């Protein structure tokens, strides 16, 4: 479903991603872990072209993201085409980024149009917010806002959903309700890539765990391997700090 080959990205002189290869099969859940500043978010943002890669390729469902190949050159797509590609890739932000002047339902329908209202209501019901369709984001708790954001990302019926630290901005007691929704999505066979610090969730839900450090993909494998028997020193050091 997702195929990254040799993805490299720098901000100025700082290389945030170095030669990352990653394959995410359809219907699988990949959890990306790593210390802050290791390039996790950037990796995610490269998949839907919110960041342009400097080198390497991103493919979703076999289609190059952000570029078009002509001969042996890659031409950057027009913004219109990129926006169209993004409609297949749901994105959930750490800070929710709901539109504050719109109700929960309006947020969900903004990208799909009013015709999809029954589906919008259904999605909000699916994330447990059937009674909050007409609430504005400011009237909702952080956990509720994030669930609206997940419903909004699902409204376009994307091929995959990317989660960028979806629970990091939440009060501890609200983390569970968002993880529950994500767990249900995973069970329903949604292709997901999740950047998170919730190691327990990763162990339970992930098919593959990827460890990123200083822009390099150091280790990947099933949770039992990466979490319980890490091969790399950096992975061991990181896990010893988060698994207390």
């Amino acid at each position: 479903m997702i195929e990254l080959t040799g993805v490299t990205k720098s901000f100025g002189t700082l290389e945030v991603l170095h030669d990352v290869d990653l394959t995410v099969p359809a219907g699988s859940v990949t959890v990306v872990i790593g210390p802050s500043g290791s390039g996790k978010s950037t990796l995610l943002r490269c998949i839907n072209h919110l960041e342009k890669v400097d080198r390497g390729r991103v493919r979703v469902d076999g289609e190059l993201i952000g570029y078009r190949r002509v001969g042996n050159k890659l031409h950057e797509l027009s913004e219109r085409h990129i926006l169209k590609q993004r409609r297949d890739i749901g994105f959930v932000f750490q800070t929710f980024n709901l539109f504050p002047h719109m109700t929960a339902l309006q947020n969900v329908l903004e990208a799909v149009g009013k015709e999809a209202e029954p589906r919008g209501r259904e999605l909000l019901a699916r994330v447990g917010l059937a009674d909050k369709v007409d609430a504005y984001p400011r009237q909702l708790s952080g956990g509720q806002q994030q669930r609206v954001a997940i419903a909004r990302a699902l409204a376009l019926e994307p091929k995959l959903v990317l989660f960028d630290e979806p629970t990091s901005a939440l009060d501890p007691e609200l983390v569970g309700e968002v993880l529950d929704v994500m767990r249900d999505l995973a069970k329903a066979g949604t292709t997901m890539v999740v950047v998170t610090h919730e190691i327990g969730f990763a162990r339970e839900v992930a098919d593959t765990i990827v460890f990123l450090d200083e822009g390099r993909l150091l280790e990947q494998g099933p949770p039992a391997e990466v979490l319980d028997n890490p091969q790399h020193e950096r992975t061991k050091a990181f896990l010893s700090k988060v698994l207390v």
Partner: protein
Amino acid sequence: MSLLSSARAATGRPSDEPPPPDDLVVVPARHPWRWVAAAAVLVVVAQFLHGLITNPGWDWGTFFGYFFEKSVMDALLVTLQLTFAGAILGFAGGVVLAPMRLSKNPVLKSVSWGFIWVFRSVPLLVQLLFWANLGYLYDRLQIGVPFGPGFFSFETSTLVSAFGAALLGLALHEAAYAAEIVRAGILSVDSRQLEAAAALGIPRLRQFRRILLPQAMRAILPNAANELVNLLKSTSVVYVLAIGELFYQVQVIYGRNGRVVPLLLVATVWYVILTAALSVLQHYVERHYARGYVR
């Protein structure tokens, strides 16, 4: 301290003691100086009102005689036309200029910057006189291929009437200020909002219209209302082009009858009333755009 100790004593001996501490009545602090200050200010206000009523110089008879007079009403209409046409054209210009100035295209950016620079620099009065004398620079204007042949041609003086010159001047002046007000509004919106819209694949123009502008309006409105009030008063400057707006008209009348103060008062009171009406409008428009921001 004494409160505390008596409370402690009360818990020690529960029989014939004063009520427990949670029954005590709170007495708010007194503010005698507030009363003194209010009284002093009221005396000054009373003096002013007394002057308004008793000073024969205000000539209230003449004031009421002209307040609803036909020529004043017509002039008021011209003032309103200049204000609203100027505001609509000005803000339309601002909505184009602000994104230009924020764009990555260096040509659009510099042209917008240059426009704002020039039209904020030139005093409105000077600009108005320029437009009124456009015929001196170009006696004919034509529409056609740039630097090539023309299709339609007009005499400048027929195309740019005095009213046209006034409106053009006000609109350009207004556009420069409106551009900065709109730009401030756009900058006030969290950039993550557009990122979220981009991640949802919402087309660019729709992002601007549906996501950015409604949120920017919250920051734009108070400043825009200010600017509109300013424009209302700035229309008085176009009297130099001999356009029959409110201020020009009262000057004409007091030039004839010599009652300067009451006629200036006629104009003043109308400006105050119109500003009040705009403030009411502002209140309701701001309330509309505040949806989602109040709990």
